[in-house]
């Protein structure tokens, strides 16, 4: 897994609450046996018209948000199916971090394991950042994981919570399976109990 320490990137606001993983990556794209190739299908049904052309009204297709790497969305982002294809698609599209007032449980776990940072901030902060991203072309945020802070262009910092272990794994790009396997004797002892 790629390590996450600091990131500065363009912000795109997705003004929706309860974005489910069926929207993030629709089921017709879950038949691949590889981990790659999902980015082009991110938000497929919102992003493309019936004829396959990009939907000019969908926010990701607006030229000003091309190459955005930070997504802002409404409450309960990533609800529904446990498909890890959702964070794969977000990451392969180019997102490094998602900002929302809250996340669904399984989705949040899946993000950490793929080097994407899900950042929960108070609803009023999300609303104001989202407004800035709409009002100010080229609006960027800086994310400092070590400091657990989202820093605005004017220097305002918003701190966020993250578990120590998740933080450690992200900062070091650590393979969690390797972590657990170092306790093989504990696992064996449990099995023999």
């Amino acid at each position, binding site marked *: 897994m790629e390590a996450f320490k600091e990131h500065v990137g363009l912000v795109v606001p997705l003004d929706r609450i309860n974005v489910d993983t069926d929207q993030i990556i629709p089921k017709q794209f879950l038949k691949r046996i590889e981990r790659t190739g999902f980015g082009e299908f991110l938000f497929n*049904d919102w992003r493309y018209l019936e004829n396959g052309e990009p939907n000019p009204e969908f926010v990701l297709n607006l030229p000003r948000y091309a190459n955005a790497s930070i997504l802002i969305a409404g409450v309960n982002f990533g609800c529904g199916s446990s498909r890890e294809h959702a964070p794969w698609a977000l990451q392969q599209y180019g997102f490094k971090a998602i900002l929302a007032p809250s996340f669904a449980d399984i989705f949040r776990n899946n993000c950490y394991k793929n080097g994407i940072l899900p950042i929960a901030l108070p609803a009023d902060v999300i609303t104001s950042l989202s407004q800035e991203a709409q009002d100010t072309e080229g609006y960027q945020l800086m994310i400092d994981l070590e400091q657990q802070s989202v820093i605005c262009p004017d220097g305002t910092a918003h701190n966020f919570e993250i578990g120590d272990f998740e933080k450690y794994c992200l900062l070091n790009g650590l393979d969690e399976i390797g972590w657990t396997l170092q306790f093989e004797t504990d696992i064996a002892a449990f099995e023999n109990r």
Partner: protein
Amino acid sequence: MKTQTMYEKIWEAHLVRASADEVPILYIDTHLVHEVTSPQAFEGLRLNNRKVRRPDLTFATMDHNVPTTDRSLPITDLIAAKQMETLAENCAEFDIPLYDIDSPEQGIVHVIGPELGITQPGKTLVCGDSHTSTHGALGALAFGIGTSEIEHVLATQCLLQQKSDTFEIRIDGTLPYGVTAKDIILSIIGHIGIDGGNGAVVEYTGSAIRALSIEERMTVCNMSIEAGARAGMIAPDDTTYEYMAGKRFAPKGEEFDAAVEHWKELPTDEGATYDRTLQLNAADIAPQVTWGTNPGMVTDVTGRVPDPADMATADEKTATEHALAYMDLKPGTPITDIPIDRVFIGSCTNSRISDLRAAAEVAKGRKVAENINAMVVPGSQAVKRQAEAEGLDQIFRDAGFEWREAGCSMCLGMNPDTLMPGQRCASTSNRNFEGRQGKGGRTHLVSPQMAAATAVTGHFIDIREFSS
């Protein structure tokens, strides 16, 4: 004396390591695997030269993208076929038992687990599917995981897990006639919202829950995830022990008696407290129908499509507007005035034998309304055989329903069973998200009885009036 909830007991009994400054390591007793979320996990094992630690605790089947038409015909979707082939190869390579498409045990992973007795009270069970919460109906701690976690469990038989909050949802009283387990859970989600259970493991308690059969309890636990809960569970009782007795992988003879003694220690201690609680009265619950694009957008069958203007927050107003536009519904429309094009009876929520019996009772001697396509997809080959032995297939066929082979089918439309754009479906499944059953398709979630009644009338109808 220390009092604990059932979740806390099972949690504690499965801790491999728990020191204050580390993420707890939880042992997993049972791992269920299917074709869609596992290929990348097996690939990860190979890349890192790792083995499956406990193939004897791992079980696989094919359900998500199997066709439900004649199994003797070749699979036309070559990408889906490749995924099934990959699962077969992975199971052979890592020595994992597989109930493949031709197996008499094949079926939806959350139907066959309990059916075969693989799911047992007091166990930890995971699967790369969010509806793994189903298995909590037997008093197991069961939850869905992502592909990285599948790989983790395959390699270590453990998961790194933080403990969840506990949430008691208590339902006392007697369910009115025509009101089902599906209506209980839809009503709960309507009350607490689709994120109302986030961060918690729900335990369903109360006399109305006790009165449910194991299959009905599965319907309730199944949709815990639709309220955002990590898991849903119901304490084992005599109903549970009777269900477990004689199941293929259940303990036998003296071992069974010993197991029952252990299971009796699982229920939440008297005086134990939960982090959150909710109480509902079963008598207040009416048949439910969803009108929007998530399971929390639900109302009584006697209700109307809501008006976005009545929503409490700007976000909810916008979400309701989006939902009504997608669903092509006007505010104030009575639910019973909504006509439908398709009916789907199936899915891990409602495809067990008792669901099919309930739907068949409604369909018996009646005909599916003109221009409506209705299909019944049993949850497993065993359910299908049982239904056929009881003549349910004939009742459905005579009424004009299609009778299919077992699988997830049009719950998520990964196989050829999908809605066409604009089609409206009464569905016994669990998710009414945009495009869930097919791009542009419109899903209304209901109970099996309501789905069958809707099929014969062509629009939603209050099952309580329909039968009387």
